[in-house]
């Protein structure tokens, strides 16, 4: 029996590496150390991933070995330059300080309310919560106040500062303390902020991931020798060799060799593309089966990938910021509360003529008006909503998206790959018996998408296989082969005529009829005569029609956008039940079309799967990517559907609407209890127990209401 050894994987930072040879040197050095099983060094990131057996050499030994070769090794540290992570950690720190202190303050206020030592301790503990942990809210409120406006921060600052300030005075005056109210409000809001940053779509990370789709290294041929180097080192005009399975490092033209290239990450098109000398290739696409020698034409920021990343980030930054619902409510609420407090003070002063009797109830109004569950209302709903979405195959990138998507009134579908299967299928066979079997035999050895559609179509229809020989393809026109000893021609009408086949009138008529339906038609002929027509088309997905109908029923207009010619596009649109079809739209015009729809006053969702949809997805108010499509589209979108089923769009929009409704309900519960207590406060009847009860009830209501989302769609 093999001895079971425990293996651990460690990350190191390697410094001093400049080239591909350095990588190999470091790898070799590490692999020579006892217990090192596997080692991968990345030049671009300067990181080494090492798999170690349990009894491996200690870190110091590895470091010394690497140092002996002129490099340095350190335990890997997370890059501190990720602003989102840093923000997340900063909130977490504040949460960790605020919660324990607040808990103690609350405990003291409930069990030892009258003891002097407890009152002083509460003051001491509440102070850092108010001014250190709660500092961001105070800063935010001050910034708002300078512009004479108010948001959630204003409400927090107003409520907590009043509660804190009053309590400091009350500490000496021997009145009730509200330190626990101030501290808990800050704590709850910090928790909400932390949850929000954690769940937030990381725009900057998305951009980074987009660029990481590109190759990191290139095999450059200089002076007849081949060097492994960083992509940054490659110059325009360099020759790079790309072996099977490697990513093409940068944009260029094939100089030598031939291969098929998987461009799906760019186009969403799953059929690999044939590349021979003279063809353009694009960086980040994957070379599949042959070796290519590529003369580079564009590098760095000029490459197609970098251009798209730029377009996406432009579209993202041009989006108008969404004012959060909670902030909008707070903006209206704050002046009203201040008004009520002022009226309260005035009324009491008129009634009693005593300044102190007038100010205390007014302060109570300000204290009770700040709902501590307000900060949880949005993040709690968003967290549960996104979690439920993930279970249903809908990945949501952040709360703003959900708040926006309820107003969506147009859904734009990029046709290929979202509404349709994205590949050709045999749809019609017209004419003589045996034509399909002959065509399938003649096309059997071809990799062309249309040929594959014919072969697959024949197999699906149970047509008996024939054998072909003497296969000859004329690029773009058709093929000629000998099937069971008889010459068969398959291709466009012009090709059959050139090959000496006569095309009868009935067949010509059928051909134009089928073409008018937006399908691609070609003819099959033998014995000097065209005898049948075959039609292929990109067919609708099974659930596309249902999806369109459901969206309509939800009051959403459906638009289809495509680069296809008008008749093809309209035929598909009719079949799917879509009447607004934008046809003959070039890839780079899609973003403009989305913008135009937005300028007409619509809130637009865009569904796409190709890299060329990236900018349009980012521009749309809600970008929905099909998870089976291009990585770039996924990165540029707000929402990703894990399956290719278009019904996911309906689920996504319904879930967004439900989540939004939950946020609204949460805000109602958060504000409700506190608003109900305002009259009591104004009447001078508020006490810390009432204030604490309002906090408890509203928090529980908000959380339990959010949890109901777990049962969506019920």
């Amino acid at each position: 029996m093999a001895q079971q050894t425990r293996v651990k994987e460690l990350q190191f930072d390697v410094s001093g590496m400049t080239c591909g040879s350095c990588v190999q040197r470091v790898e070799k050095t590490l692999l020579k150390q006892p217990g090192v099983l596997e080692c991968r060094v990345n030049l671009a990131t300067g990181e080494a991933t090492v798999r170690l057996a349990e009894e491996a050499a200690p870190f110091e030994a590895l470091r010394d070995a690497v140092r002996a070769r002129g490099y340095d090794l350190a335990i890997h540290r997370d890059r501190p330059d990720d602003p989102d992570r840093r923000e997340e950690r900063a909130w977490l720190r504040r949460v960790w300080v605020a919660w324990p202190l607040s808990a103690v303050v609350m405990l003291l206020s409930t069990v030892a309310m009258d003891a002097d030592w407890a009152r002083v301790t509460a003051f001491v503990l509440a102070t850092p919560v108010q001014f250190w942990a709660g500092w961001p809210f105070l800063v935010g409120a001050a910034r708002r106040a300078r512009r004479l406006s108010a948001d959630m921060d204003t409400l927090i600052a107003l409520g907590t500062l009043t509660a804190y300030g009053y309590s400091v005075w009350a500490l000496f005056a021997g009145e009730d303390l509200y330190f626990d109210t101030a501290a808990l409000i800050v704590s709850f809001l910090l928790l909400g902020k932390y949850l929000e940053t954690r769940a937030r779509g990381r725009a900057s990370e998305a951009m980074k991931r987009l660029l990481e789709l590109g190759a990191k290294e290139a095999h450059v041929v200089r002076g007849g020798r081949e060097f492994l180097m960083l992509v940054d080192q490659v110059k325009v005009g360099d020759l790079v060799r790309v072996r099977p399975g490697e990513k093409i490092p940068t944009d260029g033209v094939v100089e030598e060799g031939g291969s098929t290239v998987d461009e799906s990450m760019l186009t969403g098109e799953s059929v690999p593309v044939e590349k021979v000398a003279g063809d353009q290739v694009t960086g980040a696409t994957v070379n599949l089966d042959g070796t290519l020698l590529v003369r580079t034409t564009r590098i760095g920021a000029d490459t197609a990938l970098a251009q798209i990343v730029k377009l996406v980030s432009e579209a993202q930054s041009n989006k108008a910021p969404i004012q959060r619902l909670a902030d909008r409510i707070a903006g209206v609420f704050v002046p009203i509360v201040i008004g009520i407090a002022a009226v309260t003070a005035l009324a009491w002063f008129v009634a009693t003529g005593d300044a102190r009797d007038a100010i205390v109830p007014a302060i109570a109004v300000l204290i009770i008006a700040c709902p501590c569950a307000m900060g949880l209302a949005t993040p709690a709903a968003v967290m549960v909503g996104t979690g439920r979405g993930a279970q249903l195959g809908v990945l949501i990138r952040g709360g703003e998206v959900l708040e926006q998507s309820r107003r969506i009134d147009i859904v734009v579908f990029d046709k290929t790959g979202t509404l349709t299967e994205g590949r050709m299928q045999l749809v019609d066979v017209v004419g003589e018996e045996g034509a399909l079997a002959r065509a399938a035999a003649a096309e059997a050895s071809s990799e062309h998408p249309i040929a594959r559609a014919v072969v697959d179509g024949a197999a699906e229809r149970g047509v008996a296989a024939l054998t072909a020989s003497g296969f000859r393809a004329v690029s773009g026109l058709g093929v000629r082969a000998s099937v069971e000893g008889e010459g068969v021609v398959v291709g466009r009408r012009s090709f059959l005529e050139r090959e000496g086949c006569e095309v009868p009138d009935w067949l010509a008529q059928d051909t134009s009829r089928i073409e008018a339906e937006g399908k691609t038609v070609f003819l099959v002929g033998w014995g000097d005569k065209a005898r049948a027509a075959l039609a292929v088309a990109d067919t609708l997905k099974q659930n596309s029609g249902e999806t369109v109908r459901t969206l309509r029923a939800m009051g959403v207009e459906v638009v289809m956008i495509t680069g296809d010619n008008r008749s093809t596009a309209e035929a598909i649109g009719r079949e799917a039940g879509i009447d607004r079809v934008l046809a003959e739209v070039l890839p780079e015009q899609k973003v403009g079309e989305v913008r135009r729809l937005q300028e007409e006053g619509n809130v637009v969702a865009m569904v796409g799967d190709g890299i060329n949809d990236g900018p349009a997805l980012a521009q749309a108010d809600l970008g929905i990517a099909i998870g089976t499509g291009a990585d770039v589209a996924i990165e540029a979108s707000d929402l990703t559907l894990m399956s290719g089923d278009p019904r996911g769009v309906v689920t996504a929009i319904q879930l967004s609407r439900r989540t939004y409704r939950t946020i609204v309900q949460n805000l109602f519960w958060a504000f409700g209890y506190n608003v109900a207590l305002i009259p009591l406060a104004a009447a001078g009847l508020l006490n810390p127990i009432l204030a604490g009860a309002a906090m408890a009830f509203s928090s529980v209501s908000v959380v339990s209401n959010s949890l109901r989302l777990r049962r969506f769609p019920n």
Partner: protein
Amino acid sequence: MQIDPVCGMEVDPGNAAGSYEYKGTTYYFCSTGCLEDFREDPESYLR
């Protein structure tokens, strides 16, 4: 600009990590690692 014969990087002689004279030609290197590899077996990098 000179080319590091070991790894193919372009190296500015003024900034090179090292240089080595071999059969009358001075070669420049991007890193001391490349220089050492070259010194061990120059011929294998000059074919």
